[in-house]
């Protein structure tokens, strides 16, 4: 999966990507204080390309402890569990499920939007590929708009950036590849080589997406994220991250 982190104060997009093994579960948001958890499980492409197997998010798990509610979104269906009671919708549905503070809205074969207390929302986009494509598989994207509703100790690959780190980008210059300028980004006391590139936002145009220029951090985001990406592996889809 590719990550795009928008830093409102410095008005910059920073991006990085992580490739690991299918089945691995990465913690995206871990807010122990307010009991909010988001994890993503990786799914692999049908076969490697250039000896490299791409991985995507094939399943996302949301857990709202105060509601005792779990929402599991896969590329096939959406399962809601509240206590011991379970019900599921499919991506063919257009539906709203209202559970006191949690609203789950499914827009047929497009998005699932989860809203908590009408203030905090998560959008999950379904990317459906041609079933017989030799390598591509269906995958999911997740979008979390900036909010100050998370607690200060929130962590996770995305959650940690709810507290925006200070960055300074300087020494911008042509890169080895002229189409990809490079620069130095100073962050968390480190100087990282970053490369200019483009990512995509699919919320408005689900097919070709909207270009998002960003500074790419290499080595799976090392230096920009706390620790390294392996620190964010969790054993279960509903496991909180233990940090540090």
């Amino acid at each position, binding site marked *: 999966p590719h990550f795009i982190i*928008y830093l409102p104060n410095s008005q910059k997009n920073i*991006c990085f990507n992580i490739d690991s093994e299918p089945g691995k579960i990465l913690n995206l948001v871990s807010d122990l204080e307010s009991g909010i958890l988001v994890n993503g499980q990786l799914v692999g492409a049908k076969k490697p390309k250039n000896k490299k197997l791409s991985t995507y998010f094939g399943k996302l798990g949301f857990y709202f402890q105060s509601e005792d509610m779990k929402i599991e979104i896969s590329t096939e269906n959406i399962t809601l569990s509240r206590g011991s009671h379970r019900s599921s919708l499919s991506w063919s549905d257009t*539906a709203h499920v209202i559970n006191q503070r949690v*609203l789950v809205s499914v827009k047929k074969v497009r998005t699932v939007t989860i*809203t908590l207390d009408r203030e905090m929302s998560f959008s999950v986009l379904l990317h459906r590929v041609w079933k017989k494509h030799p390598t591509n598989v269906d995958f999911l994207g997740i*979008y979390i708009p900036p909010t100050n509703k998370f607690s200060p100790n929130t962590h996770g690959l995305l959650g940690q950036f709810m507290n925006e780190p200070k960055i300074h980008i300087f020494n911008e210059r042509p890169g080895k590849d002229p189409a990809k300028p490079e620069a130095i980004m100073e962050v968390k006391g480190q100087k990282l080589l970053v490369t200019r590139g483009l990512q995509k936002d699919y919320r408005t145009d689900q097919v070709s997406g*909207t270009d998002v220029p960003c500074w790419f951090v290499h080595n799976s985001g090392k230096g920009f994220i706390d620790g390294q990406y392996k620190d964010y592996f969790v054993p279960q889809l509903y496991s909180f991250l233990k940090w540090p």
Partner: protein
Amino acid sequence: SVSGESGEIVEDVDQVTLYSYKVQSTITSRMASTVIQARVVNNSPQPQSAVFDVQIPKGAFISNFSMTVDGTTFTSSIKEKTVGRALYSQARAKGKTAGLVRGRALDMENFKTEVNILPGAKVQFELHYQEVKWRKLGSYEHRLHLQPGRLAKHLEVDVWIIEPQGMRFLHVPDTFDGHFDGVPVISKGHQKAHISFKPTVAQQRKCSSCSETAVDGELVVMYDVNREEKAGELEVFNGYFVHYFAPDNMDPIPKNILFVIDVSGSMWGIKMKQTVEAMKTILDDLRAEDQFSVVDFNHNVRAWRNDLVSATKTQTVDAKKYIEKIQPSGGTNINEALLRAIFILNEANNLGLLDPNSVSLIILVSDGDPTVGELKLSKIQKNVKQNIQDNISLFSLGIGFDVDYDFLKRLSNDNRGIAQRIYGNQDTSSQLKKFYNQVSTPLLRNVQFNYPHMSVMDVTQNSFHNYFGGSEIMVAGKVNPDKLDQLQSIITATSANTELVLETLAEMDDLEDFLSKDKHADPDFTRKLWAYLTINQLLAERSLAPTAAAKRKITRTILQMSLDHHIVTPLTSMVIENEAGDERMLADSPPQDHSCCSGALYYGSKVSPSSVPSWANPAPTAMIPMPVIGAPVVETTPPTHVMRVEND
């Protein structure tokens, strides 16, 4: 004698020969139209009586009958009952009779015609009837009762099934004890199937040298359809729409269930034995989160427990022991028994002992009318209505023919439930269990079907107290053609403290292409389904009508619809006459029974179809701020074709 193609002797000289017996059934999206045709020849030198005796499902509506006797054709027309009778009395056909009589078998009635034919004469009978396929326990069952009565030179049964949603499975169980193994031929596609049953004369014989036919039973076709959307399937065609709703994939809602069992003297013997047997299985099937109790009554009322208890193993074992000890005797006090059950549920509700997400059911099992206490049925109905809280649904199971089924129907329809007739015989237990299984898995509460933008009219009942897993709710109506090119539906429902809003859209011409390609598909199926649902619901509303004027109004509507849609209902008869109009027969529905057993599991109510409940319009999610174009905290995985910084 008449020799068939293979040279076999079909009948001896003094018998009527059944030249052909053909049944053609087409199910177009739950709407089944069946034609049964028989041709007989009188081969004897004497006049003979030819009988055409067909069993049709009790909930079916007969739509046409024709008979050709030696070239004279009798055709049918549907008349208001008194008009029909008058016409019949003016020109009674000599030596010819026709009529609908109460069936001998489960939920069946007989259409029987008898005609006296001269030596060498030929007769052809042809009956048409329609019925709706109700989904029960996860499948639809189409039953064709085959009873040619004798060997037929040509016996052909064809069933076509056309289901736009596609068939999840289709199965033809062996219902002839293996006699016709391999004879039914099934050809099945994704959305269409054809079942053909054409035994040769030899295969028809009970044994190789027998002259009796083994074709005496039911050909049963079971199937279910695919369901992609939880909001159900909305089918629009020819100016009408039908909405099918059968969501699954959700955990059952807990239920609070009261079994109210008649243990009066009349239950003695097989009825009690079978009821006890059924209750033992039913109690075993209760779920741990269910609560239950048992009220048994004769001229006295008792309760296993005077309050609801959780259906733990120990409790159900104890309740079973209690039931096994019951010895039926004495009179029948339905009034007190029901009031006791209602009291137990109301009390539990008032004390907050009921899970707020649960549903409450009363299942009354009785085989007779009240003989003790309040005897007036309307009073009993009133007492129940006044005491029962609106979260309770009452289901009544009437065993045998001594019980006033109409009373049970009114009682249940009035209290969010339905009644069903149970036959007091060796399979009473399986009937009771089968009924229980239909209501044992509540999945949703307060299901309401809405069609916004004033896009529909004359919608059938669209608000239902419960939805039970394995069944299907049907709503139908007319569409406003000049309104939209799409029909939108919004279903609201509650499942275990979760409010559901399910939307679906149907294009006006979605089915055009599909149905036009199949010559068997019935282009009128939506209209017929609508008429069928509407008439059945009106029949039930009629019996609950609070005033004579209201009743008259409903009666007029039913009559007009029955005439418009050319079907025999309790208010119409079929007049069968020759061209000259001087020979007539009358086929009348049995006086009080026809309203029994339409097969529907639901009796709902009507609310304005364009009044979506306010809570169902969840405020749209706050627009996600995008301070920098396309650059909030996001994470995405773009397709590879985008030029981008690849990983290093």
